[in-house]
């Protein structure tokens, strides 16, 4: 801790010039290596977009922008529209965030501020384990365990209390936007917890001590001092989680019901972009069909870029405000 602060403040010790020369040479090598790596990433992203764009030309030529707002998906009639999938991707991701954000941040606060260190490190280990579970396992748990539980214990009281709302109307079969959102939230909560916890731990101890010294309670310190300081990092963790939710395929397709329809009710089955690509690509025949699935990939790519850009803007504005 002490040494890194020493180096960061610019007090690099001057040693023999030969050593410095070699360091300088190392600098240049490191510069070139890192530059090449970052260019490689740029090239990969560029190639992906290019490939997707080229291969989705038949669809773009046939449907144009209409593809994005049409809700017909008929492989037999060669009519394709992306709207139900975009809708499903957005609804399930939003629902997942709605559940995962409060849960994740609360858990992160407990782990970093309140739990005894031993318990904290044990729980953190378990949470990181959750992040490593393959998504197909979450999907299986979702369809065989979670969906029946939601059907038996969650939906009836929800419908009783809020049945007048359009989002809780209609028949519930287990597979639905709601189930997909819940499974996704379980999948992304480890990301929010583990990144947020790191960020909270990085808030300088002096700030906490100062707040406590002027008479704040522990909760007041956490809520009014630590949390605002960590805000940027926490938002970052949320967007990381959102990116995962948007692109999640296996788990979603197993619980969402795979029905390309736009309905207000969260209890209805729906579809998502990643799920339809995974479901239909292997057996797709006909160039328009295949290119429509590829174009959906490009749409998902675009959606992710827009959301990432939004995250940047949000983070930089909140960082300015807190500065």
């Amino acid at each position, binding site marked *: 801790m002490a040494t890194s602060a020493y180096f960061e403040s610019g007090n690099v010790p001057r040693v023999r010039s030969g050593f410095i020369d070699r360091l300088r040479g190392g600098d240049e090598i490191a510069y070139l290596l890192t530059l090449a790596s970052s260019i490689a990433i740029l090239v990969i992203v560029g190639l992906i977009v290019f490939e997707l764009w080229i291969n989705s030309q038949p669809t773009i030529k046939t449907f144009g922008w209409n593809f994005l707002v049409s809700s*017909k*998906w*008929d*492989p*037999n*009639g060669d009519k394709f529209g992306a709207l139900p999938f975009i809708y499903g991707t957005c609804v399930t991701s939003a629902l997942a965030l709605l559940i995962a954000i409060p849960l994740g941040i609360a858990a992160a606060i407990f782990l970093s501020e309140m739990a005894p260190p031993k318990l904290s490190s044990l729980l953190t280990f378990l949470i990181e384990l959750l992040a490593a579970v393959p998504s197909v396992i979450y999907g299986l748990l979702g*369809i*065989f365990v979670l*969906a*029946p539980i939601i059907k038996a214990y969650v939906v009836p009281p929800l419908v009783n209390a809020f049945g007048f709302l359009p989002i809780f109307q209609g*028949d519930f*079969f*287990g*597979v639905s936007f709601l189930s997909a959102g819940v499974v996704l939230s379980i999948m992304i909560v480890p990301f929010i917890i583990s990144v947020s916890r790191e960020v909270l731990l990085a808030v300088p101890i002096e700030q906490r001590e100062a707040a406590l010294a002027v008479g704040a309670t522990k909760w007041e310190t956490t809520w009014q001092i630590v949390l605002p300081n960590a805000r940027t990092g926490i938002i970052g963790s949320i967007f990381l989680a959102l990116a995962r939710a948007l692109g999640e395929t296996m788990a979603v*397709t*197993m619980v969402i*019901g*795979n*029905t390309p329809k736009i309905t207000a009710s969260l209890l209805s*089955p729906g*579809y998502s972009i990643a*799920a339809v690509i*995974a*479901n*239909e*690509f*292997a*057996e*797709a*025949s006909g160039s328009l069909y295949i290119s429509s699935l590829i174009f959906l990939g490009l749409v998902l790519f675009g959606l992710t870029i827009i959301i990432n850009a939004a995250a940047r803007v949000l983070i930089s504005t909140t960082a300015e405000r807190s500065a």
Partner: protein
Amino acid sequence: MKLAYLALASVATLPLTAQTQLTGAGATFPAPIYQKWFNKYASSSNVQINYQPIGSGGGIRGVNESTVDFGASDMPLNAKALQAFKDKHGFDLLMFPTVLGAAVPSYNVSGVTQPLKFTPEALAGIYLGKITMWNAPEIKSANPGVNLPNEKIVVVHRSDGSGTTFCWTDYLAKVSSEWASKVGKPNASVDWPAGIGGKGNDGVAGFIKQQPGAIGYVELIYAVKNNLPFGVVKNSAGQFVKADLNSVGAAAASTTDIPANFAVSITNAAGKTAYPISTYTWLLVPSKIDDANKRNAIRGFLKWAITTGQNEVEALQYARLPKAVVAAEEKQIAKIQ
């Protein structure tokens, strides 16, 4: 030391038994029997076949792009697709039926234990979303004495593109003109008028198990292996037939009008004992293979698969090819040059 000599000796003998490697890709439904065949065939010949079950669409694309030596498909290629292949490559793509399978209606109806009987009208009505209750007259009339509950029908179909879906929609399009005009020609994925999509046989079966009132279609093999209840279906001769190796084989045997390229649908077949939702599955082989080793290997394998190999299929619940088809295929093998 001895071990080292042994290892050396075995390396030295390798060139003598030079293996011919073949790569194939495609349909998932016949993948278990194909794997078994390739293993068996490798032990009795020096042909090593590597098969990737990536789906029929992938198999068709692979053979079209020449990234694999042969493809496999649960759907017959239509004349247009075959012509496109010929235009691109300058030679034909040959289709070889290998085994037979079937799709069966599985369900979860409260209080019903005996196999339900389905008429074509009932199945089409259910999948069109027009028959919505289990005690509807269309179902009741075919099942006298069965206490059908006043329960909502929840329709399930495959969400992933599948040869099973092709077979199912092929059947529905044949027996229902309304289906044919509304949904259109059979396909691996269609715009379903009703129902929920489950991923894979297991996704459909899992949903049926959990949801009272659910009906879905699964592969016969999957239903038998997992002891799923499934219904009997009325065939074109008016008989209610249970899907099994005999009735699926009968559907193939009773379809004698087979086009030269083997692109034949055997759904709604004429025979009295024929199960109406049956299908062939095909290997797709280019008619021109430049590498003589590969050409001989694939010809040898095809010959073996449709003759000796047929003895292996029933253990895995696939029905065997009718004799007439085997004879016709043997002639087609000679076309591979």
